[in-house]
């Protein structure tokens, strides 16, 4: 049965030159799991919001939307509120109440449900979602993952038939994201809820989907099963960058047959490639050869070699922490404990690690915002405490915070950029410097906007321009890829490359293993308040078996040393040659 029918839907925002959605037609059958994909800005959010009557944006709309056979224009607001649920990206901005049980009851209260019914429904939901143990907690004390689960449970109290989700895991760390998606799958499978989810991280979600919709610049360019996605991928659709590693590898190798999605399928494909090959595997056992084969320019390995020899020279280090201890409250627990790490000049160092492992705290200590209570920190050979207050922020370090909105003080992006140059660039050159930096990041067109009117990726870009205008020698990035799609990551990689040419040292804190694999010189793992396992990138990922990239897991023992899809391809080619 068709639950949702969208016909010739075209939508234009007020003051927009071209429509955000053009002539979109599709149907969603009851009980299906549909993934809506496309690059950011392709109209995914607009489409989802139009499907939820209460949130439909203002603008010019033509075409029709029917829910369960009823046109949206005549859809009862009670039916719409209860039968269509929506979940958005930011877990925090969907919580109304102070205590978990109040939040769970909120939707039912709105619909005028009787107390006794609310009591059972809330109990049911809390049990189903495993919320019982934090039922009386304040919502502010929950972790991001718990908050998003609470939001899902809160929507589910109304037992909706259609669940719309707008990138619900974008703000979560990988473990919380995994938990959320498996709960979503359970809700779909066990309760038969129809799901329509927009995502750009396709790795985990595609295996659950029955159907895929692809939006490109507001038009529906693909509507079919997951398998039919293969054709689009083969043609090099921009979607490719967000595909699972196995699928990317499949495309890069130009393999025939079905597109693999999981690591196991990818490994099988690779095994087939090797089997059809005469070259005995023995010759590949040496990791070093694989790396030199894998990377087109062997400079990478060489660089890490030279680094090793120089690491003893302290003058070469941009930041060096030794045995640092830090806690937020006097009687609190140590967030950093015996933490030592050395960031060398000119390198890109990626700090990985789970939530609460102290990554961000470490970044804040280096930025001079927090002061450790024991241990020594040196920045460019000088003791951190010896810098005058404000001196660090003035051309030594600059921090791009996790939330790019925190960077903007004024109501206009350009005003903020100019403000950033105030102490770092002479007045006459300011306009020119701002123009050049904005150009380098491809952010020139954002100059006259209000920071809050930009999309997540644009905000990040504009914020990075401001941070770079502080002319730091050591750039600190806090989760720069969080919630952003593959295209933006590519752009960020290009920027990092340029910064490297200007020998700016970069320290990145991230959950994004793929990003670290392609961009970092060295990688460290933050764990239990310290930094362990600092290694050159390739070594780090090949030696880890769980905490590593999907490509590395696919390559496994067949191509040791390869940590990205591109490297596997090179290795395969090298072998075939």
């Amino acid at each position, binding site marked *: 049965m068709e639950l949702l029918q969208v016909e010739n839907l075209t939508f234009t925002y007020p003051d927009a030159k071209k429509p955000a959605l053009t002539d979109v037609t599709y149907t969603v059958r009851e009980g299906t799991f549909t993934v809506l994909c496309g690059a950011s800005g392709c109209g995914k959010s607009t489409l989802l919001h139009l499907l939820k009557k209460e949130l439909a944006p203002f603008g010019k709309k033509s075409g029709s939307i029917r829910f369960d056979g009823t046109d949206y224009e005549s859809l009862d607001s009670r039916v719409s509120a209860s039968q269509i649920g929506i979940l958005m990206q930011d877990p925090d901005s969907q919580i109304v109440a102070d205590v978990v049980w109040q939040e769970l009851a909120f939707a039912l209260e709105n619909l005028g449900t009787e*107390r006794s019914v609310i009591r059972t429904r809330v109990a049911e939901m809390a049990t189903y979602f495993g919320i019982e143990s934090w039922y009386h907690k304040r*919502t502010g004390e929950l972790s991001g993952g718990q908050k998003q689960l609470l939001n899902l449970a809160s929507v589910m109290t109304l037992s909706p038939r259609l669940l719309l989700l707008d990138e619900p895991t974008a703000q979560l760390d990988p473990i919380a994201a995994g938990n959320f998606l498996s709960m979503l799958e359970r809700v779909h499978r066990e309760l038969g809820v129809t799901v329509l989810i927009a995502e750009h991280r396709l790795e985990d979600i595609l295996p659950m989907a029955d159907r895929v919709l692809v939006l490109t610049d507001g038009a529906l360019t693909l509507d079919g099963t997951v398998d039919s996605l293969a054709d689009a991928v083969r043609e090099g659709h921009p979607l490719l960058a967000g595909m699972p590693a196995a699928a990317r590898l499949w495309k890069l190798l130009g393999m025939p047959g079905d597109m693999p999605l999981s690591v196991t399928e990818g490994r099988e494909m690779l095994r087939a490639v090797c089997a059809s090959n005469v070259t005995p595997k023995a010759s590949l056992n040496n990791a070093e050869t694989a790396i030199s084969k894998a990377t087109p320019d062997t400079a990478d390995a060489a660089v890490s070699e030279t680094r090793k020899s120089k690491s003893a020279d302290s003058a070469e280090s941009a930041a060096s922490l030794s045995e640092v201890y830090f806690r937020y409250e006097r009687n609190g627990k140590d967030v950093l404990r015996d933490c030592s790490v050395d960031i060398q000049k000119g390198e890109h160092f990626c700090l990985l690690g789970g939530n609460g492992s102290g990554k961000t705290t470490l970044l804040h200590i280096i*930025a001079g*915002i927090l002061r450790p209570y024991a241990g020594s920190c040196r920045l460019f050979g000088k003791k951190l405490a010896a810098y005058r207050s404000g001196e660090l922020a003035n051309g030594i370090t600059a*921090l791009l915070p996790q939330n790019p909105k925190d960077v903007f003080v004024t109501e206009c992006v350009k005003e903020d950029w100019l403000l*950033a140059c105030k102490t770092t660039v002479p007045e006459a050159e300011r306009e020119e410097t701002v123009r050049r930096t904005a150009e380098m990041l491809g952010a020139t067109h954002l100059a006259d906007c209000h920071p*809050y009117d930009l999309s997540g990726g644009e905000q990040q870009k504009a914020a990075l321009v*401001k941070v770079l205008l502080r002319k730091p020698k050591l750039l*600190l990035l806090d989760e720069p890829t969080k919630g952003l799609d593959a295209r933006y990551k590519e752009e960020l990689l290009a920027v990092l490359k340029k910064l490297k040419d200007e020998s700016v040292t970069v320290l990145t804190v991230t959950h994004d293993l793929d990003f670290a694999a392609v961009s970092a010189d060295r990688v460290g793992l933050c764990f239990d308040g310290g930094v362990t396992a600092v290694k050159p990138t390739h070594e780090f990922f090949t030696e880890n078996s769980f905490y590593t990239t999907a490509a590395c897991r696919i390559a496994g023992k067949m191509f040791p040393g390869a940590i990205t899809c591109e490297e596997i391809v090179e290795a395969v080619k090298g072998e075939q040659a």
Partner: protein
Amino acid sequence: MAYERIHPAVLVAYFLSVMIPAVFTLHPMMPLMALAGVVLLLLLTEPAPPRVRTIIWMSLLFLAVVITNPLFNHRGRTELFFLNGHAITLEAVLFGLRNAACVIAVLLWCHCMNRFVTGEKWLAILGRHLPKTALLVSSAMRLVPLLRKRGEEMRKSQQALGLYGDGDAMRQLSGGAKVFSMLVTWSLDHAVSVSASMKARGYGLRGRTTYSVYRFRREDAILLTLLIAADALVLTALAGKALSFDFYPVLNGSRNALTVPGLMTYGLVVLFAPIWEGRNRLLWNCYRSKI
């Protein structure tokens, strides 16, 4: 905790029944009994011994209230001595003592009330009659820690970008005002997002109900009935001038048939909390030993 079981409305009614007679009468027995009761309750329920600082503060407050009254108030017949040509009278000193006992008793009872009747419980009571206000208070309480955290993050980010520094106070203040202004922008934006989520879940439809996890049970009904009966007796005694008391010009307490029952009932009300606490502890130990 034995108080988790009692309905919040009954709890609040109880605390009012203790505090109101202590505050609004002059009979010195009232605040004294209230003080004795709360000290007993604190001894039984306070998880950590009170810090020295709290005791010092309380004593200072006590002394301040005791001393202020005779200094400004020279009514009363029994002159103790003269200060700057004004008589310091025994009645005024005793009146000051009553006031001080009353202030401390109310503060301590409020301390207990704030521990037993949490924000969550106040909202459950409020939600019945003022549902919109309760929702507003609840979301404001949810926002306080969130906005504080965001403000702190913004301050740190701006510090790392050089908005603060130099340590000069004017710059710190203007920096703080700028961050606050940023926080306001973010908060209003956040308000719009949250309101979208509220609308999506049907806020604004007619006939909203309110839910509370606290159920009014038989035990609550019994307790409330007993409490109302006790209150009625105390109030009758008060209305019947059984507990009237004058400090000026000389100490003078009236007595009639209702005086002793009135005082005893109030004493029972005051002692109810510590007795209840003790009883539940004994019961608990009993259960445990039987298992």
